[in-house]
């Protein structure tokens, strides 16, 4: 479903958040991905027209940021953290195993269009290493086996819920809309914190009880 003039009211509401319209480029690109799954040349033209910019100016932004995709990703886009801490804790092994298991390379999609994989940089969850993200939701403390099980379930259309996230894993397009700042009403779902987040607090409470 390409970005069209029918999406004008949403795009206007995004632009109206900002004192200057150009600031809306990034949320508009996220919004475009919520429609097409990636940033198409057509949506670049729509955004440029909307913001009174040259298409080259919008393209320049779209190509700078790695979350904007220039070709389709899977319905479930899986990111494996292979920055040093996660890599050492097992991220390297998980990433190699997933590529092998799915028969695809980095930044590729399975033939059924269900799953794509990408090695990602530190995702601010190092106390849950090794970390796997799916459509930018957290799957904490993964193993080679749990990651394989996760992508198998995705291909069957029934992935488990994220460790710290909504009750059901949204699709790539659904989550792209959230990144565009459109509230999907699911903020109340899921835990408020995982155990590593609470470790210091629990110890402090034990200290206080003594």
């Amino acid at each position, binding site marked *: 479903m390409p970005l069209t003039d029918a999406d004008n009211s949403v795009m206007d509401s995004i632009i109206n958040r900002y004192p200057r319209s150009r*600031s809306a480029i990034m*949320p508009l690109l996220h919004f475009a991905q919520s429609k097409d799954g990636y940033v198409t040349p057509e949506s670049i033209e729509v955004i440029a027209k909307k913001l009174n910019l040259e298409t080259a100016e919008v393209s320049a932004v779209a190509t700078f940021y790695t979350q904007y995709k220039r070709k389709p990703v899977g319905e479930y886009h899986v990111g494996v953290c292979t920055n040093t801490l996660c890599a050492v804790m097992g991220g390297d092994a998980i990433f190699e195993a997933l590529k092998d298991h799915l028969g695809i390379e980095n930044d590729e999609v399975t033939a059924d269009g269900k799953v794509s994989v990408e090695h990602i940089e530190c995702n601010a969850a*190092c*106390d849950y*290493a090794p970390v796997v*993200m799916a459509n930018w939701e957290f799957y904490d403390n993964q193993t080679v086996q749990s990651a394989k099980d996760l992508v198998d379930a995705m291909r069957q259309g029934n992935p488990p819920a994220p460790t710290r996230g909504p009750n059901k894993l949204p699709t790539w397009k659904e989550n792209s809309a959230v990144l565009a700042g459109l509230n999907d009403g699911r903020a109340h779902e899921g835990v408020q*914190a995982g155990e590593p*987040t609470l470790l210091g607090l629990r110890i402090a409470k034990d200290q206080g009880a003594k």
Partner: protein
Amino acid sequence: MTKLTPVLSASWDQPDSFTIEGYKRNGGYRAVEKALSMAPDEVIQIVKDSGLRGRGGAGFPTGMKWGFIPQGDNKEHYFVVNADESEPGTCKDMPMLMANPHVLVEGIIIGSYAIRANHAFIYIRGEVTHIIRRVQQAIEDAYKAGYLGKNILGKGFDLELVLHVGAGAYICGEETALLDSLEGFRGQPRLRPPFPAIAGLYARPTVVNNVESVASVPSIINNGVEWFGSMGTEKSKGFTLYSLSGHVKNPGQFEAPLGVTLRELIALAGGMRNGNKLKFWTPGGSSTPLFTDAHLDTPLDYEGVAAAGSMLGTKALQIFDETVCVVRAVLRWTEFYKHESCGKCTPCREGTWWLVQILKDLESGKGEAADLDKLLDLCDNIAGRSFCALADGAASPIISSLKYFRQEYLDHLNNGGCPFDPAKSTLFALEESGAR
């Protein structure tokens, strides 16, 4: 035993800690009523007097930053929060915003009031969808409750707060790159001066603060400067979040007074996993020079870490035990800096590329001993020669690892490759053997 000081984390064990009801039940939004009853300059003075320093890495005094904003200049002022948390190892702001986004919103209202800004932004990294949901919802609920929008709490102060979601660029954690990104450009750092306090967002006076710094403000307004100063050290006052990750038995977040040591924190984390020996660690993310077991008793405050040759940074304590190859670790970090270099400055763009080539050769045993000096020479030509500190960060793990582990680099050459078994470092290798 080390006394922990949960302030920011105090309510995180309550299942609804992230809701406005949960936040208010725990005393939330009282500080904003108090602050909006004071003169803005009075609020700035309290934050100055508290000694609160930036929790995002640089450690610049927060109140002083607020005081730099010119007043009576008839220009719009902007308050921007840096929630782009991406420094490798850093994992404090994201769990805080998942568990309690309202404390940040309250801090933003107070800060914006103090610097006379009527527009504020949270720039959050894009790869954390559920945290983005929570922050978005918190903002909407704060509007509904009258803490944002027009005439807040009937005090005549207006504030619009916008959540701006990034799209996967480490460099946007650098404050001027963040501002360019927020203006709708590629996130590339600006030459300073002028500093953001004079010409920031849309060339207007702008404060850019880290999440944890801003979130610390409501508690200071509520409890006072003396309370805050009763924790920490003389020049590094207050509490902060220390994030332990890697080869400790129980990784996690520990909110403690500034100045605790890694020895104390590792004890709280249940010791090293499997009784292994600590080999190297980062005090504040991968851009801060590595430490070893010789630094277990270094006070983790701004001065203590600097005196020992590194930086407190984000207090991201990544712990690596004796199973880890330091060359592999440093190569991976260097690949990260190469990937994330924005390309604006030649020394960083080209230099990080060459660093990766040399380190790859060294790790696979194909390099030569002279490469070690070549690495240092390259670092010397990269660090301090670009617009921002990304290149300095890239040089840090290389220079510090060569300082402490030069022989391990040479072992790779003598061995014709890496002498370590990566499987021994993994989380699941230990779980499978039942040792964790």
